[in-house]
């Protein structure tokens, strides 16, 4: 089994931004975008996310898998829940509103009369959801493709996480190829004994239980190996002093500018929402006029 990271150095603008600044921006964006439902805020946020995504210089072929997951999420949240059932609009869109087809409509040929309570407000809310979820997705889908996995430990330490937690992340990244190889060897050994993971016969319970001959040896071997690693680390006095990291991170002037922008975006949204009470859901007149 081949396991590889999706990251690739692309010589892009994103490659030049400090990973700490990228995390700060990503979380500032998430918090800012999720504080508002007004398109006056969501549209600029969406544009910022598009520009940010373009900085990554990723290709559709590479990111297709991530977008398939996002597409499913957007479809279930926006099309199924907001447009068709009206569930997604609960709590944000006020009850009532302008119904598009008050008398329902007839489907030609089969002559079915359908009553569909879709309102203009729900359509606008769906667009707002698209901008909000789309913007958040643009920011977070990019991460696996543009962030060097070797930088995670040093990055999270730099963001203030304790040494031990940052080191755990670093260690986990480094164990992945070893465990993938162990899993592959175990799978081959079990297959030689007649084991079939992909066997389609049997119900759900049998399918899950069929994983055991693979899961048990790999997990137990990993636990036994952990004891040796822990002993070696103890012998080298792990955790007795502040750690240093091979992967060094240095802020550049543009990273400070990005940090300032992230802070401004978040504080600005906070003040607007809680200080001036703006940012709530509303439908612009020009959009209403399209349907009246």
């Amino acid at each position, binding site marked *: 089994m081949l*396991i590889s*990271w*999706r990251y690739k150095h692309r010589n892009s603008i994103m490659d030049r931004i400090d990973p700490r600044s990228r995390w700060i921006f990503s979380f500032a964006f*998430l918090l800012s975008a*999720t504080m508002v*439902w007004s398109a006056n805020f969501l549209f600029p946020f969406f544009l910022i996310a598009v520009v940010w995504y373009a900085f990554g210089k990723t290709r559709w072929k*590479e990111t297709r*898998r*991530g977008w398939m*997951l996002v597409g*499913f999420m957007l479809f*279930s*949240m926006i099309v199924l*829940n907001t447009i068709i*059932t009206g569930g*997604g*609009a*609960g*709590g944000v869109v006020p009850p009532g509103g302008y119904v598009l087809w008050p008398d329902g409509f007839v489907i030609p040929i089969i002559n079915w009369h359908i009553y569909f309570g879709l309102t203009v407000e729900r359509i606008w*809310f769906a667009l707002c*959801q698209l901008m*909000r*979820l789309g913007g958040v*997705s643009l920011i*977070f*889908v990019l991460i*696996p*493709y543009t962030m060097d996995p070797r930088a995670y430990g040093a990055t999270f330490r730099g963001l203030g996480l304790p040494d*031990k*937690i940052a*080191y*755990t*992340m*670093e*260690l*986990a990244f480094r*164990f*992945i190829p070893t*465990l*993938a190889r162990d*899993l592959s060897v175990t799978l081959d050994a079990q297959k030689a004994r007649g084991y079939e993971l992909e066997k389609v016969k049997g119900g*759900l*319970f049998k399918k*899950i239980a069929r*994983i*055991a001959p693979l*899961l*048990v040896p790999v*997990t*137990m071997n*990993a*636990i*036994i*190996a*952990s004891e040796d*690693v*822990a002993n070696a*680390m103890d012998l080298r006095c*792990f*955790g007795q002093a502040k750690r240093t990291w091979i992967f060094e991170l240095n802020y550049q002037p543009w990273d400070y500018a990005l940090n300032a922008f992230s802070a401004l975006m978040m504080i600005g949204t906070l003040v607007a929402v809680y200080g001036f009470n703006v940012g709530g859901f509303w439908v612009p007149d020009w959009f209403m006029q399209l349907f009246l």
Partner: protein
Amino acid sequence: MAEKKKSIWKFGTREVVFAAIGAALYAVLAYATNMLQLPGAGNVAIRPAVVIPMFFGIAFGPIVGLITGLVGNVLSDLLSGWGFWFWWSLGNGLMGLIPGLISASIVDYGEMKSILMGELFVILGVIGGMGIASLSEMWVSGADMNTVLFANFIPASVSNIINGLILLPILMVAYAAITKRSGR
């Protein structure tokens, strides 16, 4: 001499290594078994690997369980190219943390009482973890309670509970054999 009480919140060298190994194992197994789909439940995958944070929580404590689930899910999403969804990773972490709360009370992992207690806390862990993750969709996506319940919480919880209930006893019995044999 009185025996020193086992602290479940300790995070020393052994816990750092177990959490790292657990996270890597969870990521690799989740990645390897992604092809198993739950029949009739949209895009919800059967993820037998969810038993890893639950088992690591029970065997090595709640912090190890939390990190195994949280970091393991982040790594698995990074490997699969699915992006970074912090609230779902946190939910996975809680699925390891909550079963880990009983880690100090388990002496023999092969004992029926320990297994039953583990199973009970697996159910509570899944409800807590997937509950938090699903509720966060209300905040992020603006979905209502019905949507969150039927589109997120129930499919994810049922699948994870079934996986946990079937695979946890197998891992606990195997681990009991190892601890007895090696005197750990």
